[in-house]
């Protein structure tokens, strides 16, 4: 490589570094916002799940479509990924997990959240039934409400027997993990991880009736879960992008350092060469 080539490469890598640095800063701000949302939502979700577990434990047999046994195997999958790439392994991890998870399910419906999910499944020739737009970025309660309305409609009209959601769970800012949870029908098994908050042994009364309470409670639960899953996924995306962009910036720094060294060497070699030439020429003239 000659000097001008190296100069050009250094300039172009510096440009890229500027971009990755900017993306890093943006996603770190977005991540902080998402994490504060997540924190506030975590208490709500914990309480909600605790309450539902409490109700399921203390109410004996409630006959309600939302808690019936799974009879058919028509499953609706909701897959949440990001709207954009350049987030390290974030999109790939959750999408590959989704493909693995959906294997062996004959009759399935596929709902996607995020452009990356939609284009991924289109590429793999999966039929995407519904794409929820504008939800992957900055999730709001309003989006969760819309999604849960669609899901409840499908479920109560008997089009699906089971609804599962696949998203990325944020373990810490440094590690995220794709997970699948079952939304409907509700079963005590899905609440094993919820700690019981009291040891009171009585049963609850329902007003006006168990059915009507569950009619309002379950949509609430779904909205709560969907919202928190959206927030989780969004926070994971930002964390993942932040880490990816940080390492990209560092890589760029390394390469630039390397190239600077090469550039100095090449310049030095060129100068030495020229000096040699001059000296040789002088010698030749003196010899004459």
């Amino acid at each position: 490589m000659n000097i001008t080539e190296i100069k050009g490469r250094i300039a172009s890598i510096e440009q890229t570094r500027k971009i990755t640095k900017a993306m890093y800063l943006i996603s770190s701000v977005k991540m902080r916002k998402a994490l504060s949302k997540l924190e506030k939502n975590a208490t709500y979700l914990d309480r909600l799940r605790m309450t539902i577990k409490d109700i399921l434990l203390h109410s004996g047999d409630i006959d309600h479509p939302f808690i019936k046994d799974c009879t058919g195997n028509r499953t609706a999958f909701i897959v949440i990924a990001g709207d954009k790439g350049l987030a390290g392994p974030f999109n790939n991890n959750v999408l590959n997990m989704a493909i693995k998870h959906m294997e062996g399910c004959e009759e399935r419906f596929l709902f996607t959240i995020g452009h990356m999910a939609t284009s991924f499944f289109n590429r793999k020739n999966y039929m995407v039934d519904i794409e929820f737009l504008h939800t992957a970025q900055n999730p709001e309660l309003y989006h969760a409400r819309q999604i849960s309305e669609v899901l409840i409609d499908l479920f109560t009209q008997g089009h699906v027997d089971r609804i599962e959601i696949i998203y990325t769970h944020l373990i810490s800012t440094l590690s995220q993990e794709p997970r699948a949870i079952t939304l409907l029908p509700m079963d005590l098994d899905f609440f094993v991880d919820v700690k019981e908050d009291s040891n009171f042994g009585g049963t609850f009364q329902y007003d006006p009736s168990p059915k009507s309470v569950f009619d309002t409670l379950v949509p609430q639960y779904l909205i709560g879960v969907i919202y928190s899953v959206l927030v989780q996924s969004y926070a994971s995306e930002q964390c993942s992008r932040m880490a990816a962009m940080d390492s990209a910036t560092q890589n760029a720094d390394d390469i630039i350092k390397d190239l600077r060294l090469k550039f100095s060497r090449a310049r030095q070699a060129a100068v030495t060469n020229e000096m040699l030439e001059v000296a040789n020429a002088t010698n030749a003239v003196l010899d004459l």
Partner: protein
Amino acid sequence: MKAFHLEIITPERIFFSGEVEELIITTPDGQRGVLPSHTPMIIAVDVGEIKIKQAEKFKSCFSAEGFLEIRPDKVVLVAQVVEWPEEIDIRRAQEAKRRGEEQLRQKQSLQEYHTTMSSLARAMARLKIKKSMNID
């Protein structure tokens, strides 16, 4: 005066946590009061006003759909949105009401109709609480 522990939780924040003497909520069948030592019960909560009595004084706030869990040790209200009257954005509520009324005049699917009706109910309840605050 006897009191009980009340928690009000929404997806976006913990709205309230503390000892109260009485709680009045709006249910699909009308208003309903909860006093200390109430029997364990789960009640569906409708869009409307909720009132919290602390130190002999009632404070009212807006609540969207949710449910109330009365346990022997405490009472938990879980709702989509709960707002103090001063947090209610009156212009936004008025706009939501106008939009809802406009949508009702148009042809809608059943699902759209339900969405419109519930957002209209939220807007009306917000406006009502705001209005009653201004008179006091």
